[in-house]
């Protein structure tokens, strides 16, 4: 009888049930989408923050002091220690290799160009490398996204170079021209604009700089761009003072310090350090944006709870005469309430499932429109969302059900308010 009552209620009052169902679907869809977006925003913004450039710098351990002012190095080019280019792919073998967005080696040398001393910077543009079975592409195009090139980017395996904007102005060089560096002709693939010291320099594939210096396989420093976790109390501690358990936790968290530690282990005779300007500030920006989205999600949940509960309340309020009839026929408070709660639960589950599907779609659209990448909804969310939908519909109906149950059947049947 109970099942039949609920079933008939759904069959007979399709329109009213559909309205409440739509409200629940909509509310759950918005809630799902917002939770998914808030959950993913940290990762998405972290990737955007990588446009600030590298947050780690790897230098030789035994290096002499850098003596440079305004991008001009006054240190003799062969002075100091070097890293080995052959060691660089090992960066992909570190524990957090998936968090390493890219790296770019740098080797500044000085050379003669048209009778003047210029700095030539050897680097990777977008070099194909392999570590083990894995192939990957890395270089300044990933780590220095604000570098703009007029003309085209050179290929790493050729001798083509980029000429800095101001240097090109001074020399009157255009893309496609030939310049002579260290008795060798090089084609100018493009004009580079960075807004910093490189505007007065030549940027060439790493190989070219190594040939000019006469040190094959040498690298002066490596810029590494990594996705990191905002710093907390554990991150700041010195790994030497930790017990093994704590050290494991520290080592397995993508803090900028632990990634630096792992880079240092991976590359022999190196010293890896965070670039504090980038590394220290991204944590703050990231936590602010995450916090904002969390609070906004709470607001969304509030709006959704309101939508669902008001729809439920309205639906019950309109069925007072039915309650009156049931009570006149001898139904107790409990059994009347049970019917309504069963209906609410059924609606919540149906609407919740439909809303979850809609929320996945919404989250995807938001991800694609704003970040150009997918936002995935964790399947774990499904039971949580359903539970929330049921709880909210119960809470929203409770007051209306109580009122309907307590209503005098005589008045209800006479149709009085």
């Amino acid at each position, binding site marked *: 009888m109970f099942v039949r009552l609920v079933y008939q209620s759904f069959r007979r009052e399709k329109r009213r049930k559909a309205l409440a169902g739509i409200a629940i679907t909509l509310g759950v869809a918005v809630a799902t989408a917002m939770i998914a977006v808030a959950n993913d925003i940290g990762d998405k913004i972290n990737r955007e923050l990588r446009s600030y450039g590298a947050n780690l710098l790897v230098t030789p351990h035994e290096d002499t002091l850098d*003596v440079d002012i305004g991008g001009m190095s006054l*240190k003799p080019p062969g002075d100091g220690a070097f890293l080995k280019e052959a060691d660089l792919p090992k960066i992909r073998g570190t524990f957090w290799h998936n968090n390493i967005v890219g790296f770019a080696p740098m080797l500044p040398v000085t050379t003669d160009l048209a009778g003047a001393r210029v700095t030539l910077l050897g680097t990777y543009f977008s070099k194909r490398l392999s570590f083990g079975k894995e192939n990957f592409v890395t270089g300044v195009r990933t780590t220095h996204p604000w570098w703009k090139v007029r003309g085209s980017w050179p290929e790493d395996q050729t001798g083509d170079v980029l000429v800095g904007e101001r240097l090109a102005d001074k020399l009157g060089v255009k893309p496609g021209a030939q310049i002579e560096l260290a008795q060798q002709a090089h084609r100018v693939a493009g004009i580079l604009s960075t807004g910093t010291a490189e505007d007065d320099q030549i940027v060439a594939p790493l190989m070219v700089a190594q040939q000019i210096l006469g040190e094959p396989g040498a690298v002066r420093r490596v810029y590494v761009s990594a996705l990191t976790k905002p710093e907390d109390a554990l991150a700041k501690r010195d790994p030497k003072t930790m017990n093994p358990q704590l050290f494991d936790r520290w080592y397995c968290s993508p803090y900028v310090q632990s990634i630096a530690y792992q880079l240092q282990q991976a590359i022999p005779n190196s010293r890896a350090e965070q670039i*504090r*300007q980038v590394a220290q500030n991204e944590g703050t*920006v990231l936590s602010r944006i995450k916090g*904002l989205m969390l609070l906004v999600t709470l607001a*969304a949940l509030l709006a959704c709870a309101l939508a669902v509960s008001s729809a439920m309340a*309205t639906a019950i309020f309109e069925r007072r005469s039915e309650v009156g009839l049931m009570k006149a026929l001898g139904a107790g408070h409990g059994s009347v309430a049970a019917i309504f709660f069963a209906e609410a639960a059924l609606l919540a589950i149906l609407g919740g499932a439909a809303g979850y599907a809609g929320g996945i779609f919404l989250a995807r659209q938001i991800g694609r*429109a704003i970040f150009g990448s997918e936002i995935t909804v964790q399947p774990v969310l499904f039971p949580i969302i359903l539970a929330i939908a049921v709880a909210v519909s119960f809470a929203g109906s409770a007051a209306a059900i109580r009122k309907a149950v307590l209503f005098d059947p005589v008045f209800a049947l006479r149709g009085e308010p």
Partner: protein
Amino acid sequence: MTRAQVARRRAGRPHTSMFVRMLLRAAVLRRGRATSALLAMVVAAAVTTTMLNLYADVEAKLLHEFRSYGANIVVVGNRDASLPSDALSKVDDTLAGRGTAVPFAYAVATTSDGHSIVIAGTDFTRVRKLNSWWSVTAWPQPESRSSQAPAQALVGKRAAAVLPSNGKSFDLSFQGRTIHLIPAGTLSTGAAEDSRIFISQEAFAGWTGIRPSTIEIGATGSNAEVTAIMQRLAEVLPEARVRPLRQIMEAEGRVLGKTRGTLLAAALLIILTAALCLLATLMGWVLDRRRDFAIMRALGASDVLLNSFFAAEATALGVVGAVLGFAIGVALAAWIGRVNFNAPVVPRFSVLPIVVGGSVVVALLSAAFPMAVLRRAQPAMILRGE
């Protein structure tokens, strides 16, 4: 006053007061339903106000956070020359408090055992404000006027390793002139600063005679405002090159754009949900009053009167709910601002007309649909409860 006018006024007066009385009694007699409709209105308006306020203010809040990344504009002397001596005061005048400018002068000095080292002269108070990421063990104390005491130096982490006696005073020479320095603290940035020694501008100028060649500026404001500041700087300093730090400006633009985009999408979704929920609640409320409607029609009320009665009710509900909701929403936004950004979100009163207008429109819409249904029904049928 003619008789006709008096008659018209008499006819008019009780009519209007009856109208108002009906509105008021309707709200008082069905307190429960009216309260729940008003509550829905208030919550919807509050959520909308919060989202609009947050969206309007998030740019200012994030730009404030972004300034912890330091300079976004650099002024350098043309052709590696020093800047004119009044450059810093000109920059300060142009900024007019909307940013921090820090001068830097550089020279290459030699330590007593022959190492070359870059030494920089700067203003410690300013650099501390601009470059908050500098990790410093102890900042040099402001110097006393007497030039007897040796100058204090901030020594970069890598430079410290080269200096002969750690923690003790040391000598540096530049073109035959020697300066005696006391290390105040060690600096660590992970970048070029680690290999340098910083001393105060006065000590640097007195020793080397070199004026600042670079001024780093952290200008606050949106991209357009910063560009305007750069143009003005270029005008007042024709002998210098003013350039943006694209690394900082472009990244800021991207992060800001994405955050605003996400917030806008969230705001739209939330406002839409709130509006739809409001529509459903109010429609239920109007439908619930079909007996009043039927009695009024049975007593001979015209369609115009009925329409204006329900429209007035909806408008009153919309305005009262929106104003209450606005107040709550502003408080909510201010709270979110304080919790998340440590600075309250400034209330935007330009949002109020949008919220009030939107609420009234939704209220009128939700009254219009049930009215159309009820108008078609016979009063007798409604009164019989069918």
